[in-house]
């Protein structure tokens, strides 16, 4: 019995040379495709629709999804699909700017705390603790109180509000890398601290930033939508996803599509950036080990 099985077992399937598409690749591919479309829509929305997102057509108000208006129309007869497509630019800009701000802030704190000596380490740890103990959204809400509503205040509020969470991660990473065996090995070779920081600590500590940044875009869009929803973002009737949700809220009983589709765009964007971030992470880790 075994004599028959074993030769068959010993014969290995020849190793794959070409990467083969499996079920595991479908998600990342779809995510990449969606993100590509999103960027295209942000740069040139007219590629996808010729309808003016702001054009009022009172006769067509509150139309459900149909062939002429796939996502329906809002209370003034504006086409929801066109508004979602045109909203891509705002949302993407919001997401990218906010996460850039948050990560820059986090990075500066982490560097000061991680490389600035014992006192700096303690202070940064304390500062992050304090900032972290006020929920990001509440912090952002407070900031909008001072800065007023609008896109730029929104970016600042979200970016600074979420900086503490990212700061903790980056700070932890800097500390971990600082204690890594290869940093000690470099020290033992007689390299100067500045060289060690540039050659080892920075690149290794900030490797996860790419992944965090990618995933963060989606998260920032969700958070900014929460504030826009409360009326703290762009003023209606701007074609911005969060603002659209805020407008749809009053009509949710009659016109669910006004709420559903902009929200769907947010959710899918968040999913796509999450999946893209995870794939990037796998890619980076695979390259290293």
């Amino acid at each position, binding site marked *: 019995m075994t004599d028959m099985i074993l030769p068959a077992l010993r014969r290995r399937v020849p190793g794959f040379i070409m990467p083969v598409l499996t079920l595991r690749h479908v998600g990342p591919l779809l995510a990449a495709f969606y993100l590509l479309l999103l960027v295209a829509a942000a740069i040139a929305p007219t590629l996808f629709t010729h309808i003016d997102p702001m054009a009022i057509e009172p006769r067509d108000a509150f139309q459900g999804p149909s062939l002429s208006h796939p996502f329906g129309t809002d209370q003034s007869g504006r086409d929801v699909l066109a508004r979602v497509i045109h909203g891509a630019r705002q949302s993407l800009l919001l997401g990218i700017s906010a996460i850039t701000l948050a990560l820059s802030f986090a990075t500066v704190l982490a560097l000061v705390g991680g490389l600035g000596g014992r006192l700096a380490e303690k202070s940064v740890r304390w500062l992050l603790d304090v900032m972290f103990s006020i929920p990001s959204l*509440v912090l952002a809400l407070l900031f909008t109180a001072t800065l007023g509503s609008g896109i730029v205040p929104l970016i600042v509020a979200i970016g600074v509000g979420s900086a503490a969470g990212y700061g903790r991660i980056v700070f932890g990473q800097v500390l971990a890398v600082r204690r890594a065996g290869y940093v000690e090995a470099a020290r033992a070779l007689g390299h100067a601290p500045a060289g060690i920081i540039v050659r080892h600590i920075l690149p290794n500590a900030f490797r996860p930033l790419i992944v965090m940044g990618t995933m963060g875009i989606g998260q920032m869009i969700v958070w900014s939508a*929460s504030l826009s929803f409360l009326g703290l973002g762009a003023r209606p009737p701007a074609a911005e996803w969060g603002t659209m949700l805020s407008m749809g*809220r009053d009509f949710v009983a009659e016109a669910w599509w006004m709420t559903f589709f902009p929200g769907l765009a947010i959710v899918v964007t968040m999913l796509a950036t999450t999946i893209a971030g995870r794939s990037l992470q796998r890619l980076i880790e695979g390259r290293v080990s």
Partner: protein
Amino acid sequence: MIPFFLRVAHAFLAKALNAFTVLFAAATLCFVVLQLTPGDPVLAILGGGSVNATPETLAVARHEYGLDRPLPVQYGLYLTRLAQGQFGNSFSQHMPVVDVLRSQAPPTLELMAAAFIVAWLFALLSTVPTVRRRWFGPVASSLETISAGLPPFWLGLLLLWAFSFEFGLFPPAGTRGVLSIVLPALALGIPLGGFLAQVTRESFDLALDEPCVLTARARGMDERAVRLRHVLRHALLPGVDLSAWGIGALVGNAVAIEMIFSRKGIGRELFLAVSGHDMPLVAGIILFIAAIYIIAGFLADLLRRLIDPRLKALHS
């Protein structure tokens, strides 16, 4: 050797000190925001811009609230009052901040507790039976990723539309009755549950490879007992750590949820206070939230030590 109770006392003091600094920082932040907010606070005190106040009344009010003193003095007075537990009066509600908190906090705390239960139930039911199972695993995992990406307010609106307006199963608004809390709790709990499930799934997967799991199996334990009695406990810590953050996320998201479901609560109150520049109320609510957060952190720490007794030996 230092006696055990002294070490515990020391750890407790360190925690209390940390909590105090957090509260202090939160209070300072509120003060700074108050100073930076455009508009004359006296006008807000007197009831907004609509009041036709004479310069004399303004000056009197300004003096009465100490607003004519130098900033450092104002800051000192502000801190002293807070330290004495005087949160002052809400400008917009014309009642003591403490009274506002007393009536608005319970509904929010109830909502958060319910949402928290929803989140952990979701996280555990979705992970414990499915990790490393051929079909259920990937399906549950995708479900978790999607849930974690749902904005609570959007989920809330959809739930409202589907279950209140279309099917009429739950009341669309209000704070009365058990039924009124179901939809808001789901809207808040499901996204948080997605996050919790994601980290729990990862740690559960790692814990399945622990040698002690192999030992347990070699004892003849069945899969269910192995997962529930050994693996789960090893997999809980990341979720517990995330829970403290989750409490913060719940408070933040409660703002929109309470607006959507027209519930009483400090989230809604905070939003109204921020929009109305009602700074005593803002400060009161922010401090209250920071306190919740501190207590949550404290409980999470306690729970961590219960789950992993080795931590007790390491820290403190």
